[in-house]
């Protein structure tokens, strides 16, 4: 049987271990409390600017949470991101987390104009404005929408659900001419007429007999003078190599009707040309006028072909990038019938459609805009996610360490008592 004297060393070991554990706990508690003491909270976006300056100067500020009324502005977001990269734990929350994004670009159209492309949740009411006032309001029917405006003065702004995105034109376009190549015929005549009425500068070379052409202006296959070439039929194939060079260097090409059937265009066409399908409508309706046109179905040859318009399951319009340029392939032919035989608005609709086709394919020579120095935020929520991560609910953002008052004193007394007991035990049994 072990005596009480024999069990004392074990008791002393327990007291020493307990003292060390207590000491470690006190040290951790002290450090954690110091961390908790460095946290700041922002209840209003209005104070964020001052808080950022204070956080930056406060060496204890190593865990930060921004509880914002609205999404941070670009410079505030960048500041928070910088603090995060400097080692601070930065979290944020905001009730204004409606994802809204805006882009504006100049239309490649002689009539000018600007297209604003919007992204926002379906059903959201988006107000689009510029420096002069509201341009338009859009109730989102899907995740994206676009609207056209004659011009945007200063920057454009899209606001929805407390969030606001801003964007501005970054460049303006230098318009180039359009070269029409094909056989003399009604399609050539009325395509040229539609483009000229839209304001495009058109040159043409139309075959009327073997090696005899009717020329309008000078057809130049270079991007300095021509933005897009319209190949109306297979007669353009004699220039296929020059046209391919033109497209690869940034020019646009519209292959209409059965022009893409020519072997010379096989490498750059969006697809093959099928058997002509007759029109499915007798008359040209305002809602779907091209259903009254016959067309050649396009069968995609390459993976990068983008279908732009389909009819009865077949591609009627398709596009692809070739080198630095674009190719738009139209399956439709005899579009002149739309202009002449359609309803009262068909001449304008035919004209607008052809102008938009040319604009989508045309070489875009951009020049520097004079709009500089304005802080723009085209997608504020996405940028905030990218810079600061997902939002964190305020109550979950690094809660402050709760230490009961007097606990530290009780721990210190207990530590001292244990050390004293260990010392006394050793002295009483005669150990050194």
């Amino acid at each position, binding site marked *: 049987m072990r005596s009480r004297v024999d069990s004392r060393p074990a008791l002393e070991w327990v007291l020493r271990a307990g003292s060390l554990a207590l000491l470690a706990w006190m040290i951790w508690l002290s450090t954690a409390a110091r961390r908790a003491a460095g946290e700041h909270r922002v209840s209003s976006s209005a104070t964020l600017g001052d808080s950022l300056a204070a956080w930056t100067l406060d060496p204890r500020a190593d865990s930060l949470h921004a509880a914002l009324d609205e999404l941070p502005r670009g410079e505030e977001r960048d500041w928070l991101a910088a603090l995060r990269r400097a080692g601070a734990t930065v979290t944020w929350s905001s009730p204004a987390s409606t994802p809204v994004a805006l882009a504006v670009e100049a239309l490649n159209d002689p009539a000018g104009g600007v297209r604003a492309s919007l992204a926002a949740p379906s059903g959201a009411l988006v107000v689009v404005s510029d420096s002069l006032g509201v341009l338009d309001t859009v109730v989102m029917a899907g995740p994206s929408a676009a609207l056209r405006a004659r011009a945007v003065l200063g920057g454009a702004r899209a606001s929805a659900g407390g969030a606001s995105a801003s964007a501005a034109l970054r460049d303006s376009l230098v318009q180039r001419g359009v070269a029409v190549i094909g*056989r*003399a*015929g*009604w*399609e*050539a*005549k*009325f395509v040229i*007429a539609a483009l000229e*009425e839209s304001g495009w500068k058109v040159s*043409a070379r*139309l*075959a*009327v*007999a*073997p090696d*005899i052409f*009717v020329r*309008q202006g000078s057809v130049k296959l270079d991007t300095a003078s021509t933005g897009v070439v319209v190949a109306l039929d297979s007669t353009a194939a004699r220039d296929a190599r020059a046209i391919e060079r033109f497209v690869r260097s940034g020019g646009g090409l519209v292959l209409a009707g059965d022009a893409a059937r020519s072997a010379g265009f096989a490498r750059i066409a969006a697809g093959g040309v099928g058997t002509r399908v007759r029109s499915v409508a007798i008359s040209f309706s305002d809602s779907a006028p091209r259903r009254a046109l016959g067309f050649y179905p396009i069968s995609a040859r390459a993976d990068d072909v983008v279908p732009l318009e389909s009819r009865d399951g077949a591609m009627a319009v398709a596009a692809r990038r070739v080198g630095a340029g674009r190719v738009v392939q139209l399956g439709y032919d*005899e579009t*002149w*019938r739309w*202009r*002449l*035989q359609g309803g009262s608005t068909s*001449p304008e609709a035919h004209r607008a459609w052809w102008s938009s086709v040319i604009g989508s394919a045309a070489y875009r020579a951009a020049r520097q805009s004079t709009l500089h120095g304005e802080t723009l935020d085209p997608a504020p929520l996405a940028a905030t996610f990218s810079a600061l991560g997902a939002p964190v609910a305020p109550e979950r953002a690094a809660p402050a360490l709760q230490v009961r008052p007097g606990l530290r004193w009780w721990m210190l007394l207990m530590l001292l008592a244990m050390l004293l007991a260990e010392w006394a035990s050793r002295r009483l049994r005669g150990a050194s």
Partner: protein
Amino acid sequence: MSDFVFATARYESGDWDSAPLVPPNIIDTIARYTSIDVAPTGVVVPLSSPDLARYPLVFLTGHLPVRFTKEEHEQLAQFIDRGGMLFVDDHNHDIDGAFHKTASEEIRRTVGPLADLPNDHPIYSAFFHFPDGPPNTGHELNGWGDNLLHKHLLAVQREGRIAVLYSNKDYSSEWGYHPDNKRFLAVDNTRFAVNIVVYALTR
């Protein structure tokens, strides 16, 4: 489908079918000199019909007084507004004739007033070259009709292109023969028709 179909206008008043051999002769000329895809036979289209819009170049001739109906007036106005071209030939070659007086008035009322077409207009070099303007016809040279050599054609122009081309030269008689008989001519007298068609198809 053929791109070009030669169409003759039928109208309620007058004698629209006074030159039945002109269409086949012009079709023959187009096929003979050009690679234009031309339908082998022409069509007759009522001036009052929406079908007028299917044929952007329409030929109209006659001897008798012309008075367009309301429907003809409306269809023709829309046809011209949308880019169609009307070629009118006075089969009388007589500026005091009933056709000229009434047809030019109807054109003025529907499209606008006729004016002299300069002899250096692009239509005279659209295919064959006619440096002196419109070719004269045998009927003019023989002194028939108004006993005049008409130096100019007349036209209504819209935005720089001919919308209505009007002739007092009586091409309806000049070109009104069977195409096979061209072999008896030293110079084909229908060549100017090629210029009219090529101009219509390209401008």
